[in-house]
């Protein structure tokens, strides 16, 4: 499994997948105060999440909302967006430059959103206004068929799918797209499929060290393309969630003749409704209609606007100001990931006309305080910590309700199978249950227990550290604060032999199945320097249960089991406490329609956007 949301300083919290998070700190160092505002925490105002008070996006993240689509669901065209018109130019304002356009290198949310316009993979997510998400075939006719107990997966390509030059997309192109992930320069994308095919870690690269570039290919016993339409994956072990892994942007076709290797990052060859017309790295990207894209083959995307003009370098206050002023070309402008600037939240909420052009939704990212079980061996102490943790106050320091939602258990509401369990009563006592904590500590005979609390030395975390320290000391702990440089924070806490008792960690799932959450966070066999099991939980019963659930061939049946296991770990082992779920608060120009929340990537979806 890959580390998905390494610990970003809160500076870039609204885009936890952002690879720019460490770099943001570097810029701050380089350019001083000027960029501090650039990296100040995002998140925005109060909610209009479906008009419900109980929490933004609450409706859109029910377990029943996730399903695997049928062949009919996978057939295009996508349902028309009511009122949509053709024509016009959609502007997109983004804070950070895209690090990659090459679908093979894409992992972070801004680029995930962007690639939806020009790149198609074998499968993808189709969702409606109610937030019901279906995993459907995108280039494939359906979400794939498994055999051999889930070790073999077969996908069939649709008819009429073409590259931007009109040449048909064949299984050979998909093979090329996957085999190039083995090349040494393809380092930044998710590696589930290559690892499942050829071995964990970086071992898979040995199967095809040069990628497909020197004439070698994976044997058909690993990746088979018996005809132009069929792709067969032969995994080393069963993977029930393979159709989710094939929805990552890098599991799609790349035309060999157009594969410029590293330079492909500047000129990806389109399979989607738009193609690259002009790209100035670090500045702007213009996408224009791809006339070879056939809507009848695409169950997800539209091609309403003539062009997308994406411009980067817009800090959150700048984009928010433009959307609020809503004049000139800014009326036709949106952002994939820029959040409403916190200082402008109230203004946005007070301006009535923004009501129809904003959303506030829960992202699939969770913040935790991990407890180092190698040092805190008494479970009563860990439980006391979990009770004492002031989730509400922590969230307040992060920007309040617009920035997140109080977390009550380990899984994000964005996960399939999520249940709003609350074993430590966080909803009722957001400031922490001091009495209960004090009592537990007394029972353990550990009153006055010293806690070494490590956190990154960012502005936000210095504030958060104060509320955590106060809450823990109220409950009878003695807290020793340890500030760590934000650039090295993650590697410091990811050291197994670290000298801290509690520390902040965070995690985002790659797809809404908890097999991408529970094993990396809580499997004792995954404890390693740089790993994600920050609490160092190594419980044979838990490990066994993980294996059992992983082997359930039906993802839907596994989903509630993951929630049960996560709750059991939270109640019995307590390797940490979840603090809040991240939110995305987006605003856009009044002349755009069809802007929706994409719940899997946690971004504003551009594929159905039209100019009014």
């Amino acid at each position, binding site marked *: 499994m890959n580390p998905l949301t390494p610990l970003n300083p809160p500076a870039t919290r609204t885009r936890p997948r952002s690879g720019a998070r460490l770099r943001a700190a570097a810029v701050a160092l380089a350019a001083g105060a*000027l*960029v501090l505002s*650039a990296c100040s925490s995002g998140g925005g105002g109060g909610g209009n999440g479906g008009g419900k008070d109980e929490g933004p996006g609450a409706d859109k993240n029910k377990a029943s909302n996730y399903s695997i689509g049928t062949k009919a669901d996978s057939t295009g065209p996508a349902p028309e967006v009511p009122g949509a018109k053709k024509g016009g130019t959609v502007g997109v304002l983004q804070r950070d430059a895209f690090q990659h356009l090459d679908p093979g290198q894409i992992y972070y949310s801004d680029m995930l959103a962007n690639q939806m316009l020009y790149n198609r993979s074998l499968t993808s997510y189709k969702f409606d206004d109610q937030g019901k998400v279906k995993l459907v075939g995108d280039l494939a006719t359906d979400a794939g068929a498994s055999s051999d107990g889930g070790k073999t997966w077969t996908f069939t390509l649709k008819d009429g799918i073409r590259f931007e030059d009109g040449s048909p997309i064949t299984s050979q192109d998909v093979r090329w797209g996957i085999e190039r992930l083995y090349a040494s320069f393809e380092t930044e*994308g998710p590696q589930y499929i290559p690892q499942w095919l050829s071995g964990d870690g970086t071992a898979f690269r040995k199967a095809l060290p040069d990628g497909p570039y020197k004439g070698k290919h994976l044997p058909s016993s690993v990746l088979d393309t018996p005809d132009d339409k069929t792709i067969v994956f032969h995994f080393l072990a069963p993977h029930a969630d393979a159709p989710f892994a094939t929805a990552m942007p890098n599991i799609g076709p790349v035309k060999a003749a157009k594969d410029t290797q590293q330079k492909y990052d*500047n000129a990806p060859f389109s399979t989607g409704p738009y193609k690259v017309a002009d790209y100035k790295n670090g*500045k702007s990207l213009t996408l224009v209609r791809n006339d070879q894209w056939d809507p009848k083959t695409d169950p997800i995307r539209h091609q309403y606007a003539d062009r997308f003009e994406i411009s980067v370098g817009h800090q959150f*206050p700048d984009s928010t100001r433009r959307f609020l*002023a809503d004049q000139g070309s800014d009326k036709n402008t949106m952002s994939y990931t820029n959040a409403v600037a916190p200082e402008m939240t109230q203004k946005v909420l007070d301006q009535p006309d923004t009501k129809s052009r904003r959303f506030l939704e829960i992202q699939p990212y969770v913040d935790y305080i991990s407890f180092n079980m190698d040092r805190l061996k008494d479970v009563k102490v860990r439980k006391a910590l979990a009770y004492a943790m002031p989730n509400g106050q922590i969230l307040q320091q992060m920007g309040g309700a617009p920035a997140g939602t109080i977390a009550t258990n380990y899984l994000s509401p964005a996960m399939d199978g999520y249940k709003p369990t609350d074993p430590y009563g966080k909803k009722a006592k957001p400031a922490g249950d001091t009495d209960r904590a004090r009592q537990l500590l007394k029972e353990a005979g550990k009153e006055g227990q010293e806690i070494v609390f490590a956190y990154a030395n960012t502005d936000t975390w210095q504030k958060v550290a104060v509320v955590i320290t106060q809450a823990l000391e109220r409950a009878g702990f003695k807290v020793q604060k340890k500030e760590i440089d934000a650039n090295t924070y993650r590697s410091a806490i990811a050291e197994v032999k670290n000298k801290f008792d509690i520390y902040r960690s965070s995690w985002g799932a790659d797809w809404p199945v908890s097999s991408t959450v529970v094993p990396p966070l809580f499997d004792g066999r995954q404890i390693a320097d740089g790993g994600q099991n920050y609490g160092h939980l190594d419980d044979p019963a838990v490990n066994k249960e993980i294996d059992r659930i992983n082997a359930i061939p039906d993802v839907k049946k596994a989903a509630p089991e993951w929630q049960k296991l996560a709750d059991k770990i939270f109640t019995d082992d307590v390797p940490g406490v979840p603090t809040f779920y991240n939110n995305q608060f987006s605003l856009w120009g009044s002349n755009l329609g069809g802007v929706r929340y994409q719940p899997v990537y946690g971004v504003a979806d551009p594929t159905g956007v039209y100019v009014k």
Partner: protein
Amino acid sequence: MLRFLARRSLGALVIILLISAITFLLFFALPSQPALMSCGKNCTPDAIAVINKNLGLDQPVPVQYWHYMTGIFMGRDFSVGHCPAPCFGYSFSNQQPVWGTIVDRFPTTLSITLGGAAAFLVVGVGIGMLAAAFRGTWVDKFFSSLSLVGNALQIYFVGVVALAVLVSGLHWMDNPAYYPITRNPGKWFMGMLIPWLVLSIIFIANYSRMTRSQMIEQLGEDHVRTAKAKGLSRRTVFFRYAWRGAMAPIVTIFGIDLGSLFGGAIITEFTFSLHGLGRLAVSSVNETDLPTLMAVMLVGCTAIVVANIVVDAAYALIDPRVRLA
């Protein structure tokens, strides 16, 4: 004059060469690992080796410097392709020769700099002269206090206020943006107007105060008194005698300001979401894109040195004594 210019240019060349060598060495003295930093989170030792080889980082530093400098004039071949002259290196973060990016960004910086500098020079010196001419009157007091206020302000404050008022509030102007002057001079002018305005508010203060004090000093000089005594008109005395003398130090300061603006008005670019050399410098620090950073620094240094030569020439025109120096 020609000899003066030739001498200055030769000196400038030596300075630029020295700066290039120092900058180059500085990067290697730093504990940075460009290969690792451009490799991403799934990095392998193999990948680092590939990047090292591609960047030429496995060769001795002087050899790398030699290749870099010759590449500027003759072009270079990388394993990823040919980089035509002027080759300022190949950016592995952008996957293209650096020069293309510089050429793309420089016009924005040039526009900000020349327009802004023209505005603050003309208005600043104008205000200073007015204040000097009407010394002690309300005009003087008004402009003096105004420049004091201007001096206390910062671009990231004035810029944001200007955007909030002129663009979002009154809807008088569009958001600042760069349009090529060759394609649409009107749009170029309007797009740059707010940055110029804001830059001049910040800089005017210094220029007006300096002009005022220089003018007052000059107006008290013997040669000005003599000119007055000769019966020359007030205007002639003011402009031909006093002003000319007052300008020399101002031109010197202007050269320095102009040069640093050429290097990239980082804060201005961030405030107005413009993409000039300043932002490029910051993003290349950010991405440990050493080739791009080197090129930006070299272009910036060259601009400063060239601006100084131009200013020296202007200085020589204003004050003939300088040529002898």
